[in-house]
């Protein structure tokens, strides 16, 4: 299937944002 570039990039960007969010959340939750 010739996947649409929009769908591919949307998946990748959502996953990257999730990863970055978890990274920041981990550190911020350490600042108790």
């Amino acid at each position, binding site marked *: 299937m010739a996947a649409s570039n929009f*769908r*591919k990039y949307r998946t*990748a960007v959502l*996953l990257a944002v999730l*990863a970055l969010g*978890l*990274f920041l959340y*981990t*550190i911020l939750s*350490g600042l108790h």
Partner: protein
Amino acid sequence: MSDAAHAHDHDHGHHHPTGLMRWVTTTNHKDIGSLYLIFALVMLFSAGTMALMIRSELFEPGLQIFRPEFFNQLTTMHGLLMIFGVIMPAFSGFANWQVPLMLGAPDMAFPRMNNWAFWILPVAGFFLLGSFFLPGGAVAGGWTMYPPLFIQGGISYDLTILAVHIMGLSSIMGSINIITTILNMRAPGLTLMKMPLFVWTWLITAYLLIATMPVLAGAVTMLLTDRNFGTHFFNAAGGGDPVMFQHIFWFFAHPEVYILILPAFGIVSQIIPTFARKPLFGYASMVYATSSIAVLSFIVWAHHMFTTGMPVTGQLFFMFSTMLIAVPTGVKVFNWVATMWKGSMTFETPMLFAIAFVCLFTIGGFSGLVLAIAPVDIQLQDTYYVVAHFHYVLVSGALFSIFAGVYYWLPKWTGHMYNETMGKWHFWLSAIGMNITFFPMHFLGLAGMPRRIPDYSLQFTEFNQVATVGAFIFGFSQLIFLAIVLKAIKGGKPATAQVWEGATGLEWTVPSPAPYHTFATAPVVR
């Protein structure tokens, strides 16, 4: 012009580098898969050599060969390299080779990111191995990187933190690529519930990686700022809490355990139906069991911390949630056995390793249940019982599945059959050597021998000597594996496209060796 024809023309318009630059600049999933597997093999021999050095020191009580601080560096680096340098890259190698082939996709979704995800890995490997030569030597606080030890060490600790960051970034990039490929690039008609189980397990593994690698990155970043920028996240003297590191670390590291074993489940679920000549028993239940294991892996982390002084309610919660994982794991083992039931079985090397996986991984799973019982764990914490447990899971589990997968797909990758007689020698020596090494460790642990200590009391001598002999049998039999792989790359009996009589799936419809470009036109799956 159709897409396929366009891709063909486009391909010829490019100048392809040859020699070393071909490998450095490659964006081809098969090349990158091979690179991951070669990297894992090199690291296997490096970290395996460290294991044999550890076992040599432990052959007799007292200090014979190494200084205690160097012994601690060996155990730490053996763990870090085996996990991040061998098992994870090897599974990434399988994913790169097989996922596009199994989905009928021409390549991974982001080929350039795929190249980056691989090529930053050797840099991390170089940092880890090179840290042995820095002042103070390599890190020695255990692969778990616990503070306060990890805050106090020398320059190699900073370098290890950098290496962990790099390896985490590589894993996240790889996972984004795998998820995007699986969700967007399946052949027409190949619905999610028709995908081969190896692809399913990798999809779930990739989600686990995305959810946990940033947590590890956060934890080691806090270590880094504690070490260099005056923060006190984990320093009790400044109001921090070293136990908080353990919570954050194990929130990463328990799902990591499943990251190391779910792709193994996938490989075994491909191999057993092929050599039993029957479809996999309970396909849907396998998918649901894998997903359940992944979800449960996030609520069991503190079973690694029963001795840190947590409330009894906490101990009970983590004890029961851990035991709950035995249910989906039991479903899987049942399905593998049921697949073999009344099958027309043959016992080629991949099948031998897969059957050994089912039997021996179950032993590792069972000792995991023993350790899940909080009062028992308080006795067994940091003893050789734990070492026996996780080596049954990671050696006869993860590593044996990697061997099984290599033998299974090597004819597809190289176009040549491997030497079956040598394969059987490799299997039997590995299976026997592995059990001689790790089974006595259960007894040593139950008798109270602590792990990560280069010396021990006299009563532990015999079992340690047995374990060391087994380790050398297991270690040196891996040279047979190396010889088999090199021989198959160089030549041998040509492999057919289907290779194995009972093999089904898209990867077996392309010739052997798989051409450099496959599925430029997507196949249709019914």
